[in-house]
């Protein structure tokens, strides 16, 4: 009897150790917090950047990746701000979702100036797509349809109402002089692929999301991408026109980057910025971007902080109008 008990306890101990062991680390190595579960975009950012930093010799110990899911990144943000405000060995994965939530006050009152944004080194271009057999041919036609009857085009996207996917068509409409943005129909579903399913199924008329989400459906001929929201056409997808060349100057990309705690010295901040630039310039990163459908988008240091501040201000004002900001 005692033997079986021992056996039972030992198995459980093994499982418990393997479950918790992942998050412990040696103290001196740099740590990258991915504010989500393994497998998502933030996890990818930490693992790829961490791996390349070590491979190219920018850090002398492997970067420890810690997953800290919760509140759409808010839990990790709170931890950095409140508990690790001067930890110079800490980097945190961020993306446009981070700035969107900050702009909408969705991190329980914390603001974008409570950390320092180091840079972005790649981006998933924003897109607007329709089903292959849709009557909508280009962005201009879609905008005219919405202007005539705001309810005629319903969008599906992978983020919640007020999220970045929702903002993309609204930014385009604002450029077109359509200001009644609360009239535009949008449903948030579980991810970009689900949004495409709803659009191909005819439940919604258009899908808003990222390029990486639609590549496979595009190749299969299920959907047509009517606009990509970048400065120039995306390499590999030259047939897809930008919103800009259709007369709507909107840049909306899901950038992948990092922030660090506010309390670190300027010297350490510049050091991280330099290391991130090294990663951006490496062949390994070029390959990682190609494999994951990312387009080049490098903004590092002070330049990036300016971009983030502008983005936060834009989204904050639009969110207020939509009524999604508390």
């Amino acid at each position: 009897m005692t033997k079986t008990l021992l056996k039972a306890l030992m198995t459980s101990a093994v499982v418990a150790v393997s479950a918790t062991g992942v998050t412990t680390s040696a103290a001196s190595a740099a740590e990258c917090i991915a504010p989500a579960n393994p497998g998502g975009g933030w996890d990818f950012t930490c693992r790829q950047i961490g791996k390349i930093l070590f491979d190219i010799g920018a850090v002398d110990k492997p970067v420890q990746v810690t997953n800290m899911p919760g509140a759409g990144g808010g839990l990790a943000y709170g931890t950095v701000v409140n508990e690790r405000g001067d930890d110079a060995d800490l980097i945190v994965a961020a993306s446009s979702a981070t700035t969107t939530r900050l702009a909408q006050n969705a991190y329980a009152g914390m603001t974008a100036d409570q950390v320092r944004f180091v840079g972005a080194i790649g981006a998933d271009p924003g897109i607007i797509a329709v089903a292959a057999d849709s009557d909508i041919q280009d962005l201009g036609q879609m905008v005219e349809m919405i202007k005539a009857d705001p309810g005629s085009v319903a969008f599906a996207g992978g983020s919640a109402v007020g999220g970045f996917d929702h903002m993309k068509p609204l930014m385009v409409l604002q450029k077109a002089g359509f200001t009644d943005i609360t009239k535009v129909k949008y449903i948030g579903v579980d991810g970009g692929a689900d949004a495409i399913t709803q659009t191909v199924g005819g439940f919604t008329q258009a899908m808003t999301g990222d390029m990486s989400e639609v590549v496979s459906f595009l190749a299969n001929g299920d959907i047509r991408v009517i606009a990509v929201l970048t400065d120039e056409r995306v390499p590999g997808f030259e047939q897809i026109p930008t919103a800009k060349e259709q007369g709507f100057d909107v840049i909306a990309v899901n950038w992948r980057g990092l922030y660090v705690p506010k309390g670190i010295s300027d010297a350490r901040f510049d050091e991280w910025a330099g290391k991130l630039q090294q990663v951006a310039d490496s062949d390994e990163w070029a390959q990682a971007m190609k494999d994951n459908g990312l387009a080049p988008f490098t903004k590092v240091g002070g330049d990036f902080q300016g971009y983030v501040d502008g983005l936060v201000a834009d989204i904050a004002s639009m969110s207020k109008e939509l009524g999604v900001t508390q």
Partner: protein
Amino acid sequence: METLANLALGFSVALSPYTLMLAVVGCFIGTIIGALPGLGPSNGVAILIPISFALGLDATAALVLMTAVYYGAMYGGRISSILLNIPGDEPALMTTLDGYPMAKNGEAGNALVLSGVASFVGAFLATVGLILLAPVLARVAFLFGPAEYFALYLLAFCTLGGMASNNQAKSAIAACIGLGIAMIGVDSSSGLPRLTGGNLHLYDGVDFLVAIVGLFAIAELFFFIESHGKGSSIGVVLDKVSIPWKYIRQTFPTMLRSSGVGFVAGVLPGAGASLGSFLAYMTEKSIAGEKGKFGTGVPKGIAAPEAGNNAAAGGALVPMLTLGVPGSGTTAVLLALLMTLNITPGPTLFRDNPDVVWGLIASLLIANVVLLIMNVPMVKIFVKILSVPAWILLPGVTMISTTGIFALTGSYFDLLMLIGFGVLGYFLRKLDVPTVPVILGILLGGNMEDALRRAMTLSDGDPTYLFSSPIAIGLWIAAILGFVAPMFLRGILKKPQAVTD
């Protein structure tokens, strides 16, 4: 015969001594993860992803290991449901209803073997379905919009009343408590937090596992303390472990039907394994009628949910592979794994990466056979664990589940919530309110609300949109029948339902 050639390709990728070893290890770890309340298949796989990176596994090896863990956990969940009356994970919830009474009747070994066989049948048929029908079935997802999903969830809730205990009103109250808890968190249709009290920890809502462990394990512990360790319902009569051929023969049609129901629920991206096992159980219960004595420990009541949830687990791979839409929490994690291996599931996956797809299917078949072989002898081990006195076993299980919950988020807040759920579970049981509908309310309520809200957004609040397609109308009729029929049948039979618990 292209399928067979593809399958041969799959086995050539997945079948080597090394990958076989990984499959066995994965199945074993998965079974344990599934059996431990607090560690479900999705966190099991999530926790192991970093380990597969650390081991430097290649794409095929990582896939074999993960699918073995995935299927292993689906098998393992039933063990604690049957032996402890604590579901090891969400889909194993329904197995407690008949599994535990059967174990109390002195048939713990039979219940475990039977559920193992049912799991095998469900998973095997689902894998076959995946092989033959995946490209066709993928189109089914295009037919389901918000209105159809809402009607599907409504069907589940309408049949709920007849499920637990003898008092329908109490089931309804329990389901409403669950629905209320499901409201907590950021509202996806407005982006605003609800009922969170400004607490960041509540923004993502309440995790099912916290609710399950709290309502079942912690509440049990409170009862145990109250009775000074004497009155606990834990501790079942042991029997000899043999293969109950009679039960297997008797329940075989049930397994086939439940596999079908489960598979279809799994294929729909918005449904998943929990709904699959629930619908399988309720279908069998209504087929058997009052004489079926569901809820008292009948073999069919074990075979149905187990075949159902394992078939749903296989079915959930269809939308994941062909559309990139995960049909359940665990397939979401598997999807993430594929993406980190630089494979993006979607309509072109079968064409562009046949080695990955068929390697995955072959490893599913391998894992399934390994699990069946492994589970029959292992039943003895699991049953023997119960010879440990309850005063050691119960705190032990509680300790492990608490560790598991803490490992999920690393936040003490979930532990406080766990105790809160324990207190809730204690009082509900004192009042004789069943706790299973509470969990179902949490599991299905959020999805049902999202579907309704999306439907209302698309239709400008026009309720007729909910009846706008033949599929939706069909589901509404089924739901209304499921709700009304038991009332009339009871009148005709003029016999109060046997008081069972």
